Structures are given as C-alpha cells and as structure tokens.
C-alpha cells in the first residue's frame, strides 16, 4: 500500500491506496501540500482496486472505497471522495467551508454570498480594485470562531479566482476576451470558467485570519443598489445548507463506469458534535454581524458595501447588531 499525507492549513488527510497513480486523483494536492506524516491524520481515505465496488465508513475517521481501477480512473470518484473527507476533516478542526467570497480592509472582513450567478466574484473583484479591499477567498471561504466566540475568516479552501465568462464579460468585457481567448462566442455560455491567480487580475491578497463584521446576500440586477433585510430564519437555513450539504452526503454522487451508471452508497459523515459547532458558528454570524440583502449593479453593490457601518466604525458593534 502507498501512503501520502496532505497538510491543508494544519488539517491532515492521509490517503492510502494500492494504486500509485490514484494518489493525485484525490485532488488534495491543490488544497495543500504533501508532507511526511509526523502526527496522526484527521482523516484516512483508503482506495483499493477491487472488482466489486463498495464503500465503508468506520463512523469516525476512516473511509474505505473499493472499485475496479479501470472504471474508477476515468471518473471523478476519487476527487469527489477527497473533497468529502477533506470537508469533514476541516470541520473537525473548527473550519467550515461556506460557498461565499470574502474580502477585507483595515483588518475587518466582509462575506458575500448568494447562488450561482449572484455576483459574488464580480463584486469581490470590484471591491478590491475600486475600494482598497484585499481578497481573502473567492467562492470557498473558511470560517470559524475566534477565542471569544466571534466569527472570523480563516482563509480560503481554494486559492485564486474562478471566473465565469458570462458574468465576467458583462463587467469586464476587454479583460474577459483576453483571459478567455478562444472561449468567447463558442456558445459555452454560463459554463465557461477559468481559475486565475489574484495577481493576474491585479488584486491584493489579504492575510487571514480576519474578524468578520458584515455579510451580504447578493443579487446582481441592473441599476442602483437596493437593500432588503435578511430574514434571520431564512439566513440560518441558507447558511446551514451551504455549510452542511457536503458533509451530510447530500452533495456527494459516486458515479462511474459507462454512462456514469454505476454507483455506491455514500453515508453522511455528519455527527451531532459537528452539527452543534455549525449551529454555534451560524448563531454568532446571525447575531453579531451586520447583514443585508443587496441587489444592484456590481459597482453600486461594491460602493454600498465599502460604506457599511462595521467597516466605517473600525470595530465591532457593541453587543452585536442584528441583521
């Protein structure tokens, strides 16, 4: 068996396999670096080349997947499993991945969330370019609580900026044509994406951790910025769904073989303890942060965020505000 250990910002995931070529397919190298195993890993992921496909979880820290290598190799199965166990291991370490962008200025961070196409990336780029912010995360912010129970941005799971041609080209047409040479006009539309380093876009990268002061639910519309209040119950559900969907197994599909027709059951890796940690983080975010629903053009939204009270005050609300 071959073993490899990956250090993802202090969280250790060890992969064990009888197929050497399988190691890079877990995709963990892009989140962290391969290290010599010096201490016990937070999670062990085992893959064995066997005729029969099966998956077992020991209920704690080891997932064992077996399946025929010839069918597994061309499928994204190992990457999907790598991503799943990484999120569980991060949660064990008090780091929660929110599908959101995060930027900061003068030692205070703001989180931008919303669905696909909501404008998280474009607004983050605009804040960095026009309002002196630095980029903490584009699309997968690592969040946690500091020693005094205040929410903070701990960094990013995926470095760089993932650009969607259809969104990026609306705000930055000339740059889009340059960065997406060959894609423009090919009809790939919404799905044409490219990940570039922050420096390629001329963005400052901020160092984590940074205390969170505000969160915005974005929705790109044309025209001036319009705001609405965030319903606390819906906000809790929205945050919970984003934080928990992977670890609960809802977002994990194991599909391989011809036409991706074969699959195995992946148990949820959630636990009551992780649920409580997630709840604590969400309560802190809902009760301590300034928050708004914000719709408008990227430049209007960015200008509105740059003027938010938390950033102006240069500190946290006394006793916390409520969104």
């Amino acid at each position, binding site marked *: 068996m071959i073993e490899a250990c990956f250090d993802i910002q202090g969280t250790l995931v060890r992969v064990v396999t009888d197929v050497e070529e399988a190691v890079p397919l877990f995709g963990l190298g892009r989140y962290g670096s391969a290290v010599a195993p010096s201490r016990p890993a937070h999670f062990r992921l085992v893959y064995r080349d066997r005729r029969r496909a099966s998956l077992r979880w020991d209920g704690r820290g080891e997932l064992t997947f077996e399946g025929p290598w010839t069918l597994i190799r061309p499928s994204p199965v190992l990457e999907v499993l790598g991503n799943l166990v990484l999120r569980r291991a991060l949660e064990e370490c008090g780091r929660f991945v929110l599908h959101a962008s995060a930027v900061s200025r003068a030692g205070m961070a703001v989180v931008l969330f919303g669905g696909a196409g909501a404008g998280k990336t474009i607004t983050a780029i605009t804040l960095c370019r026009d309002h002196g912010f630095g980029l903490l995360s584009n699309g997968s912010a690592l969040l946690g609580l500091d020693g005094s129970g205040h929410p903070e941005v701990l960094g990013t799971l995926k470095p760089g900026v993932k650009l969607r041609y259809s969104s990026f080209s609306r705000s930055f047409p000339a740059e889009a044509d340059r960065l997406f040479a060959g894609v423009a006009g090919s009809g790939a539309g919404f799905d044409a994406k490219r990940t570039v380093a922050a420096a390629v876009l001329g963005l400052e990268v901020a160092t984590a951790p940074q205390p969170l002061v505000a969160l915005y639910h974005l*929705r790109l519309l044309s025209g001036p910025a319009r*705001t609405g209040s965030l319903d606390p119950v819906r906000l*809790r559900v929205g945050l919970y769904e984003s934080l928990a969907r992977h670890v609960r197994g809802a977002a994990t*599909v194991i599909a391989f073989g011809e*036409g991706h027709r074969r699959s195995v*059951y992946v148990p949820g890796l959630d636990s009551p303890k992780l649920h409580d940690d997630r709840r604590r983080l969400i309560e802190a975010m809902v009760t301590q942060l300034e928050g708004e629903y914000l719709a408008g053009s990227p430049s209007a939204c960015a200008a509105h965020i740059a003027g938010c009270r938390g950033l102006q005050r240069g500190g946290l609300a006394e006793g916390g505000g409520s969104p």
Partner: protein
Amino acid sequence: MTVAVTVRQVYVTWGGLQCRLSTDSSVALDYLAGRRRLLGRGDLAVGSKPFPAPLVRRRMVYLDRSPEEIRVERGRVFLASPWERARRSDILECLLAVFFERELQLRGRFTVHGSAVALGRSAYLFMGPKEAGKTTMAYAACARLGAEIIANDAVIVSWENGRPRVQGCDGDVSFTFRSQALEEADPDVCRRVFGSVADGRVNLRKRVAAADLAISACGVSLPLRRVYVVGLGLTRDLDCRPLDPLEARVALHENIVARIRGASLVLFDETDRLGPWLPDFSCPRSQARLAAFLNQVCDSGLVWHLRGPLARAVETVREHAADLAAT
C-alpha cells in the same frame, strides 16, 4: 413512586402510505388528528384502526419527555421531546414528513424541489438552485402560455411503464413570489401583489394562491416531457441544451436526496434558532432506488439547461411543447 405510562398506538396515513405511531402523549395525538396536511403537503389522517393503504414496516415512536433525542433505528424512528417544545418546533411533523418521504423513495416515487406546469397534456418541470427562477418560469408559463400549475415547490415524479410521470396537484397550489423576480416577470402583477416597490426595497416574499391569479391547477397525473434546470438572467443569450448525463445526475441527485439526508432537514427550536441534529434517513436501499431512477431519467435525455432572458426562455418552452406534442 412509579407512574404508569400508557403508550397508545394509532395509524397515520399520508401520501398513500400508512405507518404506526406509538406515543404516550394524548395531546400530541389530538394535535395530529386536527391536522389535515403534513407541513402543508398531501392529505394527513390519523385513526385508531388501519387505513386501506400499504403499511410501512418501520414504526414511529414519540415520547413526551426530556432530554430531547432522535434516533433512526432498524425497525423504528424514535423521538423524545417535551410536547410544548415539539409542537413549537414542528419536529414530530418534520420527522413524519421525512419518514414518509423515505418510504416513497423506496417505492420509486421521488419529490423534486421545483415547479411543474401542465401544457397540452404533458408536464414540464423547472428546477434549479435558490433564486434561479423556478417560480417565475412556472408563473410565466401559466400567465403567458396558458399552462396549468401542477405544483410549486414539491413535485412528485415516478417512473411508470417506461416513462416518467408527474403526480397531479394534491390541493390548493400557491406561488411564493420574490419581489424583484416578479418585478421582472410581470410588473403589473408585481404591483398588485406587493404594492409599490418604488421605495427601493428588495427580497420581499409573498405567497399567493394560484386561484387568486386566475391560474387553474392540474389535478391529474401527466407524462413528464422535459426537466429544465433554469437560470433566468444568468446569460444574455438563450442557453438551452441537454445536460450531459453526469451533470444531470448530480443536479437531480442532490435535489431529491436532500429531502431525506440533506441540510434542509434542519429544524428550529422555540426561539427560531437551529434545532437538534437529525440523523440521515437514507440507506443503501434508498440509494439504489434513486440511482435506478436517475439512470432512467438521464438516459432519456429529459434534463435540459434553460438560461437567459425570461421572454426567450418562455418562448423556448412554448416551442418545445409544440414540437413534443407533434411527436
């Protein structure tokens, strides 16, 4: 001194299935007996004698006591919670809903989070992430193409005789509109529903009965002709094409499975904070049923992207419906 606890057993029926519920709480039984629907869906009935419906083997047990505890076991789903707390958090109803949903999945009936309309004796389903435009598309298909609404939010799909079918609506259907989406789809109706939105506020929501919009509901089961993964306004041009099989599988899997194992199972306590942890209701058997269903749906090329401006998306649905009706 020991207090004798009487545990009563009743039969609960919903979605064409029934289960046995054992409880020591007569208040809970009275409460359930007064409910007609389960969390606003289907027909709920509680009786001391069995109903003429297939009996689910697994049992529900509810005990009115502390500490709060939820377990999914082989033969039963167990809930302990003080009744006042259970009533306020709807936890008993939530558990029953998930319990029945899992049984429906085991029997090949899957609830899709989305909206469905009936157009020319065929059903069309709109799904997609939050704020993608599911309700807007369904409303626009009804208002502009004369479609009937089948369901908004929860659409029950099954595979029968080699074809997918959508179950007809099970009661009053309503649309939950978001102000800015409706503003784009139909400014007149938006003004009627939300009043003046000129004060610049966004993200208002309102539930409106289909009947109040003069939209009729379709109560019969219809063949499902296409599933659209919508994304209104995400592209300037219309982007409409079949999803590749893996993409379609991923999108449908998460949508359907979330009902019995996902994060949407999260509950609230009496102060509207997130409630206790709920176990995963899925199992290898439910996964196998779902995988077989996804193979059927994905092989049939039923799942398409539909992104772009609303007017062009609606026109596309009209064209597709005309083409499909001709075949």
